[in-house]
């Protein structure tokens, strides 16, 4: 379960990197299309970058964060649940910020900044479990300072 936890957290962190990449692809795609005379309006379908960003951001990463939350209950690593909960929370905030930004584009700046928080939280979660990987399973049953957050 620990390696699953670690893999999920790692995938979320990689997902954030991909989101930075896809949104750059989206914008350069728009500018390139406009250079070629295209009109962007309400009826315009998403380009490759926009589609990927939407799928990763609204489905893939939230599902990974949910799975991380579920898996965290079985890792028996102190702090694993807390970190998974934090990752899920900042992912939800990230999605909400995205939708709020359609009406108030200035919030898009927070969407960009919060992405780094998602990546940081996922990285910390991964490291949290990594440090106890290799230690005997029962070792985690010992009372530890970070074990406060429970199921």
């Amino acid at each position, binding site marked *: 379960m620990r390696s699953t936890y670690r893999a999920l957290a790692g995938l979320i962190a990689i997902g954030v990197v991909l989101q930075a990449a896809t949104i750059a692809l989206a914008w350069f795609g728009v500018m390139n*299309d406009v250079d070629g*005379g295209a009109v962007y*309006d*309400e*009826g*315009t379908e998403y380009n490759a970058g926009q589609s990927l960003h939407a799928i990763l951001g*609204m489905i893939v990463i939230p599902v990974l964060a949910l799975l991380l*939350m579920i898996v965290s209950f079985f890792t028996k690593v102190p702090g694993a649940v807390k970190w998974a909960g934090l990752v899920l929370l900042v992912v939800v905030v990230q999605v909400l910020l995205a939708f709020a930004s*359609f*009406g108030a584009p200035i919030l898009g700046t927070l969407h960009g900044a919060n992405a780094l928080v998602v990546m940081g939280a996922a990285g910390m979660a991964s490291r949290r479990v990594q440090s106890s990987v290799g230690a005997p399973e029962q070792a985690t049953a010992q009372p530890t300072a970070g074990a406060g957050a429970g199921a």
Partner: protein
Amino acid sequence: MLFAVALGFVGWTWWGSLVPDTYSMDDMGVADFGGGEAVAHEAAHGGSAVGVDTLTGPPDGEPDVSETLVARAGKVEIGGDGARAVDGYTLNDTSPGPVIRAKQGDLVEVRLVNESVPDGVTLHWHGVDVPNAEDGVAGVTQDAVQEGEEHVYRFVAEDAGTYWYHSHQVSHEQVKRGLLGTLVIEPARGPSTDDVVAAVHTYSGQRTVQGMVGEQHVEAAAGSTRRVRVVNTNDGAVRTWVSGAPYRVVAVDGREINGPTPVEGKTVSVPAGGRVDLEVEIPDDGVRVSFGGGASLVLGPADADAPTDDEPKQRFDPLTYGSPADIGFDPDAADRSFEYRIGRRIGFLDGRPGFWWTINGSIFPDVPMYMVQEGDVVRMTISNDSGKVHPMHLHGHHAVVLSRDGVSASGSPWWVDSLDVRDGETFEVALVADNPGIWMDHCHNLIHASEGLVAHLSYVGVSTPFRVGGADHNHPE
């Protein structure tokens, strides 16, 4: 434990969001009587209920205007320099389809033939307050016309103005891809000025006016006047501006503006589905009407070289334009007052998780069914807190704008059938329920409609024999 409860709740919400494969509009939504007399939502098929299929135009009589429109799937040829043909739909081999012209009082008959559109087609007469059976909404007022079938629409052209027609079957896809055309109803006495029809449509990123990209020249003598009938067939607003001469906004959504004054240096925002008639006097150098995306009309003598102004920042505002006039009824004596509150929240739409539109807090199909009786004076407060603009379109009726964000309309009566309600805005409108039937009241960003931003205005005692979904493959959105 808490997590399991949360998961159970999500599962239950998901289950509750599922829409049956086939359903009747009679059983849809949550009946809302708007504070008026609560009368039975006539769910009974047959009985004393009036079927929408009986609410037709005149069944007999020679039509004054007769047209056959053949719908086909295939390539749409776009005119103008550098245009590319796109996959889409045509009517009589063109998109936009032919301009249908009638005079006020004419009996119009249109035979729609579906030659090769796989999903089936219908024709909705956007902005024309036709009898309900002629409204062209698949699954509500008729069955979709499948390949090899045909359907005849007959109605009297009662109100002069600028209108359009489009399919209301899988409309979010069919309209975008060209299944549309324009309808002009001229005043009975004949038009006072020559007109130019300017249907604006974007085909796969190519902004066109009357099916042509770029600039088009329209011959007009200096000193003459022209009425430019701007029709926005897109999913989003089209910004229109005039360079080289002042203009008057003489009509909005097929209703004349009272006392239009000259306008200069302002952009007119035409909502999706909306129409705006602009009148210009042609100067020696001609005049340019721009529609964004490089599409424009130059009206003038053959050698006219009209200026190319940038889009003015200032917006034309119909709320204060023109002079007040009698609207023919008293909105303060309303029989019913409805609320149409648009929001957006996380939830399930027919089992799909997402961030969906809500009407009065609920996701489709738990949306209001606004119930009225013939003769009612109806007020509706439309508000939007969803983060995006919604061009709200009511079928079969015109409503008059009373106020926006608490500021009363102070200009000409502003009648609409397609009204942009921007994020954060609240409009109060009023109408007379004078056209029995079951009428869609939906967002004309047709993607949003397909995402559930659809409600209905329904007359007590009217029911529909048609069904959405099922064997007839009716999918109005």
